[in-house]
């Protein structure tokens, strides 16, 4: 506290003061003006307000706590306020900055610094093609804009959004590099698997390719991993129809608007940041060791009256070669992550620029699973004429992903499944160092002659994927007359991918179908171009300019095309030459792939009106023509209307110090879904092969009546800023009905349609939900502060209709059945393990208990012992209420700051859903001798003793079959990050002429609290699907990462 800077000044006041102003807050401005001329002396407090960079902040509101009288800082950030006896705290608040309270008993500090507030309501909301001041938006949109969050090293930016945004569920699926991430904005919007429920992602106006961009199906590639997260300024999610309708036709599942960093007027800036981290496995699967394995397998055999099977290999002298191989340990290693980013930016009021270069390397804790990415970006815009601005945003990146040998983890020889299931009593290497292939001392195993040494497969098979991506947009913006802006922007997203797969002849994949060494390559191109032109007119009219109107009209043309060439070779001739060419393989050929080829012509208009910033209304209309449909069905109309009422502008709330801003809003609109497959409406034939001859067969039955899928969404919400902008609350309630969903209607085989199904618009789905976001600063004073962000959402999906007969649709273990929630698990009901005999008891579809006796493969009534018909697939029942979609989910992020230190803890949670633990079901399989889970030790062993799992019996394929026994309630609380950061004080930096230096250490995913016994409660082996979600099948745990990094800014 610097006493000398406090200025107690006496001054003469001579003014006309409204009489009532000193008495009541709420009537300020409403009173009669009584001219009173008062002359007196008073004390003034003076000071200066700056931002964190030392720049003065004009327009900051300064007032005493619990007092409505505010003064504002001038152009140099200075203010002076009348001293009031008994008032010891000043409150500083300003748009976009965190409100701060300062105690003045000892005098004011020299400069009061305000920190940027990332969650302020009073900023700009980006909605397709235009931006609006947030206070005038009636749409539901949320944003992530914490610079440090989005800069954090990550494989792809969608992973960074987890838990931050209410209503947005980001399912990370597993710890595998390139894993399919499923993003759900307000639940699923579609039922069939060909219709994606992933939102539309737009980066600086460019609609980009997202999802799995792998052409060969062996290892997924997350298309977003070729975009550098460190270049992102903010991600805005448009949730309701009003927000998304301007993207109408592709927005049924929401829209993610990503804005990259742009230069700001002012001094130039160059920033270098480096991050280094250690990647460790999140968890390890508990499987048997060699000793337990031998005893358990042989116990299974003995119980079935068969000879033992498991044994150690024998040495030449007949003794056991005792070996205990922990295959998971062999698969794991200490991985690392590294990122270097150099960026520079600057500008003036005539131009601005931002450029960056980035190197990112992620070496997963699983061997041979890495991602390397190099990217460069340049964003620039210039006001070339008074009325004309031109701009350019582009990035080029190259991402190399080295993957495993085989996808999906469901094949026995797959990665990482084989490491988790291989025999523990078998050694890895021969004495001469070569890989040991064989079953050790174990007897012949049912399931084929597959004894793949997992390490040999991992190290000898190759699956390399490289993606090169150019995303660019160029625009011209003209303001021919005041208020009118005409903009034309050309966008392009060019992705080219190369995949190289090689299966070594000595691995089981390499001998698939009898071939000896197989090689596949794929060269693919995914190209998108989009061109839009808009004209926007903003005006104010009325006596007092109280009416504000903004009208936008525009059109956009989009074209997407993706195809690939896939050469293959079967039968390697010489192990020295493995590259793919006709000389090296006995059979050499090439296939072609066509992924998508479609276009959209869109015409849209939007009007936003507000009266006195108090009553707001917006109207959107968009008409789209989709090339996938035929004739008039190409056209889809997507209107949306919304209205808002800023209660806080009403007189009774205008000067409340509790409620600073309160807005109620409601909207309704239609959005559509454009990802409907490859020419689904055309009736077509395609070429096929009949031996050496070329054949053409029916390819799609087609349906000329096929039309747009549509989603109607109603949304009611409120945004509030309370307690001097210390607390921001946003809450929404919505109902989304998706209808005319394109589903494959099953058709009799005798009609001979391909896949025995016809695509028709028949499905209907309803999603309802509530969202709540709270963010605020519970503690705010000059020394230390605490900000908190909490969000929670409750979402429920329900299938209303599937087809005319109400037939259910099956996928994975889920079902879409009218009247049930989407993806409800459809399984056999496992009742219990009979304590007396250890036999499995199931319930048939009518609820009758049936017990299985593996000894004679018979089913009996557990009470009477009478023989009954066997349990079969027809006894599967939709387990109402048990779905893989969480009922409640959200996040809780807290940041504590003390001086230059900062501690941040981020939590993510989800409750009320189920996961099918197929990993465990496979590890308890009694029909093969692969390694088992340690859970098998909990199997029934003694009469009268209740157990979780039925008795061991070799060859029993009924007791441990697919059933509700493996369905577990999952719910979790995950600590996503704990970060400790230190900002070097400005005083030290001034001498070194540096702007900012920040150092941090961070732990990602350090703790997980869950009741789920399997790999990870977020595990999802089925990728981006709607019905079959929630199956955990050998997907590796998410990694724990420990990072440290530094940012230097000049």
């Amino acid at each position, binding site marked *: 506290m610097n006493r000398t800077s406090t200025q107690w000044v006496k001054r003469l006041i001579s003014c006309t003061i409204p009489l009532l102003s000193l008495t009541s807050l709420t009537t300020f401005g409403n009173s009669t003006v009584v001219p009173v001329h008062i002359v007196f002396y008073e004390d003034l407090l003076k000071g200066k307000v700056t931002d964190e960079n030392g720049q003065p902040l004009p327009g900051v509101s300064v007032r005493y706590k619990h007092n409505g009288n505010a003064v504002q800082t001038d152009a140099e950030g200075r203010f002076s306020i009348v001293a009031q006896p008994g008032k010891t705290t000043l409150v500083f608040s300003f748009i976009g900055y965190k409100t701060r309270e300062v105690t003045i008993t000892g005098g004011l500090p020299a400069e009061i610094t305000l920190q940027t507030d990332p969650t302020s309501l009073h900023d700009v909301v980006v909605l397709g093609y235009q931006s609006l001041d947030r206070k005038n938006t009636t749409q539901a949109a949320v944003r992530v804009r914490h610079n440090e969050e989005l800069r954090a090293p990550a494989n792809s930016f969608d992973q960074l959004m987890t838990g931050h945004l209410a209503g947005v569920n980001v399912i990370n699926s597993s710890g595998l590099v390139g894993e399919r991430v499923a993003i759900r904005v307000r639940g699923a919007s579609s039922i069939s698997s060909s219709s994606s429920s992933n939102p539309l992602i737009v980066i600086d106006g460019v609609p980009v390719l997202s999802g799995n961009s792998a052409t060969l199906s062996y290892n997924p590639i997350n298309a977003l991993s070729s975009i550098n997260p460190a270049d992102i300024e903010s991600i805005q999610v448009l949730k309701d129809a009003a927000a998304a309708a301007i993207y109408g036709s592709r927005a049924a599942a929401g829209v993610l608007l990503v804005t990259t960093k742009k230069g700001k007027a002012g001094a130039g800036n160059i920033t270098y940041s480096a991050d280094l981290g250690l990647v460790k496995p999140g968890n390890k699967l508990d499987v048997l060791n060699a000793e337990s394995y031998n005893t358990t397998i042989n116990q299974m055999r003995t119980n079935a009256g068969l000879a033992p099977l498991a044994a150690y290999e024998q040495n030449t002298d007949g003794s056991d070669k005792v070996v205990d191989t922990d295959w998971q340990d062999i698969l794991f290693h200490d991985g690392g992550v590294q990122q270097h980013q150099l960026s520079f930016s600057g500008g003036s009021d005539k131009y601005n620029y931002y450029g960056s270069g980035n190197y990112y390397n992620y070496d997963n804790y699983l061997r041979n699973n890495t991602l390397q990415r190099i990217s460069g970006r340049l964003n620039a815009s210039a006001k070339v004429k008074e009325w004309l601005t031109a701009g350019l945003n582009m990035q080029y990146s190259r991402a190399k992903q080295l993957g495993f040998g085989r996808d999906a983890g469901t094949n026995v020889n797959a990665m990482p499944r084989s490491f988790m299931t291989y025999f523990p009593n078998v050694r890895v290497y021969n004495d001469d160092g070569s890989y040991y292939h064989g079953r050790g001392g174990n007897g012949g195993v049912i399931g084929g002659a597959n004894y793949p040494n997992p390490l040999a497969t991992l190290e000898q098979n190759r699956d390399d994927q490289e993606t090169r991506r150019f995303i660019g947009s160029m625009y011209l913006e003209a303001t021919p007359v005041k208020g009118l802006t005409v903009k034309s922007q050309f966008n392009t997203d060019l992705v080219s991918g190369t995949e190289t797969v090689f299966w070594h002849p000595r691995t089981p994949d390499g001998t698939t179908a009898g071939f000896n060494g197989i090689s596949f390559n794929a060269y693919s191109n995914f190209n998108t171009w989009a061109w839009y032109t808009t004209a926007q007119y903003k005006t104010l009219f009325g006596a007092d300019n109280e009416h504000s109107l903004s009208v936008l009209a525009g059109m956009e043309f989009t074209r997407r095309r993706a195809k690939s060439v896939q050469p293959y070779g079967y039968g390697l001739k010489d192990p020295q030459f493995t590259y793919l060419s006709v000389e090296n393989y006995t059979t050499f050929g090439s296939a072609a792939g066509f992924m998508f080829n479609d276009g959209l012509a869109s015409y849209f208009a939007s009007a936003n009106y507000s009266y006195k910033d108090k009553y707001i209304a917006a109207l959107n209309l968009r008409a789209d023509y989709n090339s996938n449909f035929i004739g008039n069905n190409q056209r889809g109309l997507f209107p949306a209307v919304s209205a808002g009422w800023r209660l806080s502008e009403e007189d009774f709330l205008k000067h409340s110090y509790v409620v600073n801003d309160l807005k109620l809003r409601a909207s309704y609109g239609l959005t559509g879904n454009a990802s409907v497959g490859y020419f689904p409406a055309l009736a077509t034939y395609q*070429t096929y092969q009949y031996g050496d001859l070329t*054949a053409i067969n029916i390819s799609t039955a087609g349906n000329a009546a096929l039309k747009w899928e549509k989603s109607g969404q109603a949304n009611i919400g409120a945004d509030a800023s309370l307690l001097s902008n210390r607390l921001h609350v946003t809450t929404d309630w919505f109902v989304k009905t998706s209808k005319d969903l394109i589903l494959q209607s099953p058709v009799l085989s005798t009609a001979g*349609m391909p896949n025995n199904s016809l695509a028709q618009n028949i499905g209907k789905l309803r999603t309802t939900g509530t969202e709540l976001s709270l963010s605020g600063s519970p503690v705010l004073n000059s020394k230390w502060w605490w900000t908190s962000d909490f969000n929670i959402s409750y979402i429920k999906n329900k299938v209303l209709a599937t087809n005319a007969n109400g037939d259910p649709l099956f996928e994975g273990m889920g079902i879409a059945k009218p009247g049930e929630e989407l993806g409800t698990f459809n399984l056999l009901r496992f009742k219990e393990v009979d304590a007396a005999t250890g036999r499995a008891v199931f319930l048939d579809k009518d609820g009758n208990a049936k017990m299985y006796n593996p000894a004679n493969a018979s089913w009996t009534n557990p009470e009477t012992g009478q023989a009954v018909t066997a349990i079969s697939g027809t006894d599967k029942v939709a387990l109402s209420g048990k779905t893989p979609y969480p009922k409640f989910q959200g996040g809780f992020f807290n940041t504590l700051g003390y001086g230059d230190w900062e501690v941040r803890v981020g939590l993510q949670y989800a409750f009320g859903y189920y996961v099918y633990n197929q990993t465990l079901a496979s590890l308890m399989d009694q029909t093969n001798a692969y390694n088992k889970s340690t859970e098998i030790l909990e199997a029934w062993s003694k009469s009268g003793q209740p157990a979780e799992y039925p008795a061991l019996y070799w060859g029993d394929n009924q007791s441990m079959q697919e059933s509700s026994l493996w369905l577990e309630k999952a719910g979790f609380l995950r600590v996503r990050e704990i970060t400790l950061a230190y900002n070097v004080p400005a005083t030290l930096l001034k001498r070194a002429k540096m702007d900012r230096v920040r150092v941090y250490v961070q732990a990602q995913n350090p703790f997980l609290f869950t009741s789920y016994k399997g790999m990870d409660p977020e595990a999802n082996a089925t990728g981006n699907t709607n019905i079959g979600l929630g199956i955990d099948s050998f997907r590796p745990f998410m990694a724990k990462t420990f990072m440290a990094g530094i940012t230097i800014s000049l």
Partner: protein
Amino acid sequence: MKILYKWLPVLAVVLLTACHDEVTNIDPENKINTALVFSTPARMEQAVIGCYNSLQAGNMLQARALVYADVLGEDVINRTSNFGDIPRYTTLSSNAMAAGLWQAGYKAIADANRVIAGIDANRTNTTPEQADMWIAEAKFVRAMAHFYLVNLFAQPYVFTTDASHLGIPIMTQAFYSNDPAANQPRSSVKLVYDQVIKDLTEALPVLPPSYGTSYQSKTRATKAAAAAFLSRVYLYKEDFENAKTYAWDVINKQYGDFGLNTQPSQTYGANNYLTNESIFSIPSKAGDFEAGFTLTAHYTTSTDLYINPDFLNITINPWLAVDDKRRTQLTGNNATLGVPVTLKYRDVADWAPVFRYAEVLLNYAEAAGKLAATVDAEALARLNEVRNRSRVSAAPYTNITINSKQLLIDAVLAERRIELAFEGHRIFDLNRNKMKLTNKRDFDFNTRVADQDFGADKRILPVPLIEIQRSRGVLERNPGY
């Protein structure tokens, strides 16, 4: 700025029309519109080959239709238990394999119907002879699919005196959408056979004796193939007169010069697909088959099926001599697994034999043998022809060793069992001869599966539950399912 005012709308209109069509009028480059399929002769022929392509489905004649016939018999053991309930005769109507076979079969029939209708509607685009020939090929495919389906999903012709028991739906109409007319009830087995015979009888005179290349002559329908097929159909129908006639036409070289290879092994394996002994086979090629759905996959690569040692045991099966070449050349031992395996399908892209000259000889022998009152000399001669190719030290059959009609028939049936083993015949032969199915072993060889009497419910596959449900009860289920 005024310039902008004037030109902006013009610009907009220009842009509009230029881009609108470009983005909404798109044709797929890898597909052809259905309306254009029968526009040129070349495409018509490709469409006809498309019918064979459907027959080539892994679930149909590339593998499964033939495999199920042997899996339901007693000569193979399902080591890996991957055929589940089928070899145990405990199949349920929800069985996925049965459903796959039904769907693949009807897909082939539907494709054939569409080709016939398409060519008929576009006759002017080609010569009448060509059009008729292609329609004949499509009818051949249609008959094939109906025939295999009716024998797998329904009891044999002889199950009732007039074959009035339930068969399968007969499809002769082309469908392009979810037409309610596709929902047909099951016709009687008699009507199905009548349709098959009608298709083949109409096709036979029109089909060519051969095609441009021997590759095509062995993989597309020829007169010989139709005749061989007819001899089999009539044999199953027990119309022995006709069976003899058609078999004789092939034997008499009326449709081409066919003969037996010197060694039995010369009929199988890469380089042996186009021998004189093959009349019609389903081809294969690397990249053209579904992994796991080939005869090679089941009999060799995964060894799902191995030979029941009883088949090779000369006490139980004395007909297969110890030195018979079919034993020495076509069976072997898998050392790793310790089981006897067939060596007929060892190459990755092996073809599936459907009609062979050896079968035509046996068809003749059986038909003639059953028709005559005593031992038919011609029948015996044909039987010897087949047997002499493979026997080494055993003596040929003579009037003395085979001295009764019953003995002749037994010998023919036993020879057929050995000659056509693992080629998709066993259950059909057992069913139509009303023979009891014994000596059936379970997956682990030691356990025995209960004997199945003639007419047992699970000697045939179930009409798939999903089809019954989709037909809203029009399709009737098989008894016992």
